[in-house]
């Protein structure tokens, strides 16, 4: 994964990853077998858009939700990390 970054054409949440609101800890979580990630508000919004739509549509929708304040390179880095962890898949890799 170090030599070539994973492709991100149509990111989709992996079947074993489930979004969850933890009402006790008051936090957004992404749960998967034997682990979880704690998400901030932007991370949650990104994951909710990981339904297989094209990346540029995802970014556009995100900018609308956050009034054009989203740094797209950071979103892409975040998504690549999730692909590396197997939590997001590209359903149409190039």
């Amino acid at each position, binding site marked *: 994964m170090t030599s070539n970054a994973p492709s991100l054409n149509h990111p989709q949440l992996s*079947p074993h990853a489930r979004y969850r609101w933890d009402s006790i800890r008051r936090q957004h979580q992404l749960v998967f077998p034997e682990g979880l990630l704690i998400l901030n508000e932007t991370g949650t919004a990104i994951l909710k858009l990981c339904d297989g739509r094209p990346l540029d549509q995802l970014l556009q929708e995100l900018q609308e939700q956050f009034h054009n304040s989203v740094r797209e390179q950071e979103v892409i880095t975040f998504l690549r990390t999730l692909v590396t*962890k197997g939590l997001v898949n590209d359903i149409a890799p190039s």
Partner: protein
Amino acid sequence: MTSHQADAPFCLIAEITYRCPLQCPYCSNPLQLNRFRNELDTGTWKRILSEASEIGIVQVHFTGGEPLLRTDVGELIAHAKKSGLYSHLITAGVNTSKEQLESLRHSGLDAIQISIQDTVPDENDRLAGCPSFSKKKLAVTNAKETGLPVTLNIVLHRHNLDRIEEMIQLAQDWQVDRLELAHTQYLGWAFHNRNSLIPSRTQVEHAQQVVDHLRETDSSGLQILHVLPDYYQSWPKPCLQGWGRIFMTVTPDGVLLPCQASRDIPELSFPRVSNSSLHEAWFNSSVFRKFRGTDWMPEPCRTCDRRHIDYGGCRCQAFLLTGDVHQTDPVCTFAPEHEQIQHLIQEADQANHEFQYRRFQD
């Protein structure tokens, strides 16, 4: 860290039965299986799942033994779902059907882990102590077809470690989502059978090279988790990510444990679901507080920079190897009893290779 500062647990290990069609010689269940034939009823397990959710548990692993031997497993998964828990079923995959897996998915099962013992069917069956490879393969196919995310689990030891490349190939061919290659933890039945299981250093190093290489070149998206053998490491494993920190185990007969193997430590006594809530056990029982945080640590752990990384290692291993549950895990290079590990490796190297199968004995 004192007890009132303890954080809520994240993970419940629900050992719903110790009955199992397999007899793997490295099973993590206790040696005295016969003592635990009385199993909690469905209603009690549902109460446990509700309480688990209320104290902050996020994920439940239904395991055993073989959890599918309980006819109420679907009902328990449905209850976990209703309680907001992520449910993960850990099975040998030998006595299930596509209909059952579909039904479990419908009940709310989030993910399934199916084990094989080896990539060679005859070796798989020899290690499991029964013909099972073809049934396991069918279970993986069926689980995939129902849309369940599948982790394939293979426990590693001397007898199968040289086939690590074949294991990864098989996981790719079977199109599983995750592959867990976990070296045997030498506790329970595995400690009893250690002389026939501990691999050589050459085997371990070769396997690690193969995994690292195939991880880099894999294009299938397969996630590979490689749990290294702690006997060959310089530092102990961060067992449970800290005692009483993340995990709580409930045994088939309703004992609440900080760790699945801790019941074998004679000086510890444990709360039971019949006389304690999960909340009370986690936050207030002496046994869950005993090794929580760093105050309990002896030297060299107490002043070590790594004490928040490995939490002093594994308490059960410290007990098994030194007779004292308070000691630093002997895996640690700095541990006073570290040379014990070298002894065990050498002893295993010279021993015969017979192992004793996991069995209920009368």
